[in-house]
């Protein structure tokens, strides 16, 4: 059962930040609530104040330009991202990821900012966004801060964001030429969270060798994990299936998956090696195309 709370409904971003600054210690922020209401119903989270930013219009936008890249406001729903033509054209991996995120109902109400602030290591957007070198903007009454997204998460359900700060915006740079990106999660039902997941991006030099790669694992540790040892190993190398398998092996070693009802630790490591191999190949094939 959900514990009683005082409901705060700001009419603007300014009002939201000022309410948050006043009640930060005993306040939770709700937007779509698709994750939060579950843990509130379980009694794991019982805030005295609930600050509802679902209808703060200033944070609901998608913008793109060829220089600054993509900007997505925090209260933009997953479904809006999934249906966005400009994202489909410039970041197709984001649309493919959203298409497999939970169910249509959840995507219609849940938001990108809420998903990232919740910091569930099994969340779909973070690994993909990190592979695309995204940043996240947070702010309080005094100002704003921007974190590279791969430095934002610190532990299970914990981020660098202070209690008086709101997630404001996700920023994704324009991918360099000859870049490909791919994401896949392993699960039994399409609408479930990933048992494990891998996002990969590959940028090639003119001679076809790897200029830069990112490999990010979902649900393979307390936070979305970059496999830096494999990323570095790939630089300067040529297309080679044995290379992708080697990167997969490194990924399966450099992660900290848990064992639970869905899969053992050993099975998770195995699936990570397979997904990493496949996603690297897929990203590289795209980058060559």
């Amino acid at each position, binding site marked *: 059962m*959900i514990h009683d709370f005082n409901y705060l409904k700001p009419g603007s971003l300014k009002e939201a930040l000022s309410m948050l600054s006043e009640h930060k210690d005993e306040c939770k922020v709700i937007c779509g609530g698709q994750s939060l209401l579950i843990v509130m119903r379980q009694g794991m989270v019982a805030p005295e104040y609930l600050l509802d930013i679902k*209808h703060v219009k200033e944070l609901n936008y998608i913008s793109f330009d060829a220089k600054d890249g993509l900007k997505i406001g925090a209260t933009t729903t997953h479904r809006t991202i999934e249906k966005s033509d400009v994202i489909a054209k410039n970041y197709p991996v984001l649309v493919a990821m959203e298409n497999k995120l939970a169910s*249509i109902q*959840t995507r219609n109400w849940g938001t990108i900012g809420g998903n990232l602030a919740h910091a569930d290591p099994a969340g779909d957007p973070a690994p993909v966004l990190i592979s695309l070198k995204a940043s996240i903007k947070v702010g309080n009454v005094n100002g704003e801060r921007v974190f590279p997204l791969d430095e934002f998460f610190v532990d299970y359900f914990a981020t660098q964001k202070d209690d008086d700060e709101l997630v404001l915006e996700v920023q994704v740079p324009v991918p360099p030429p000859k870049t490909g990106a791919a994401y896949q999660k392993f699960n039994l039902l399409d609408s479930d969270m990933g048992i494990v997941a891998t996002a990969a991006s590959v940028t090639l030099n003119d001679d076809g060798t790897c200029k830069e790669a990112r490999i990010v694992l979902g649900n393979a540790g307390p936070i979305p994990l970059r496999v830096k040892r494999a990323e570095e190993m790939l630089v300067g190398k040529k297309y080679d299936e044995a290379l992708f398998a080697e990167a997969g092996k490194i990924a399966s070693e450099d992660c900290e998956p848990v064992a639970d009802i869905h899969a053992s630790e050993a099975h998770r490591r195995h699936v990570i090696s397979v997904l990493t191999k496949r996603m690297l190949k897929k990203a590289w094939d795209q980058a060559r195309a």
Partner: protein
Amino acid sequence: MEKRALKLKVNGQEYEVFINPKTLLVEVIRDHLGFTGTKRGCETVSCGACSVLVEDMVVKGCSILAVQVEGMNVTTVEGLEDNGKLSPIQRAFLDQGAYQCGFCTSGMLMSATAFLKENEGKSVTEHEIREGIEGNICRCTGYNSIVRAIDAVAQGKYKEA
């Protein structure tokens, strides 16, 4: 806890309820307004039995605070018929026998309604139909007849003459 007045429109009719802000949309719909066609199932955003439309978007009523739909249009399964005449998807469900126990039916109908509206005039594949009801679980596993019913409407078989 201080209660709040909430105005919303359900199935075209305006209502005002006086609720604790923690009240879920499905609780307002069922317990305050008496539209019991909408079911409470898993209550963990998994099963889809509580699906309703908010401004023509399908959502799960068990996982939305009712206060968040202030001033919005909500449609439940009771709102699909028009003066006693069933909607095309309701008639197709009957013709295809797309029910076993029936508990998932109202949620399925809402997802199917949203899917058909989003894809109006387009031809859809069976795979797309199945993705359209991905958020709704039929515990009797009677999916095939449900998919056939949605397909029949998508193909224009229930168009008014």
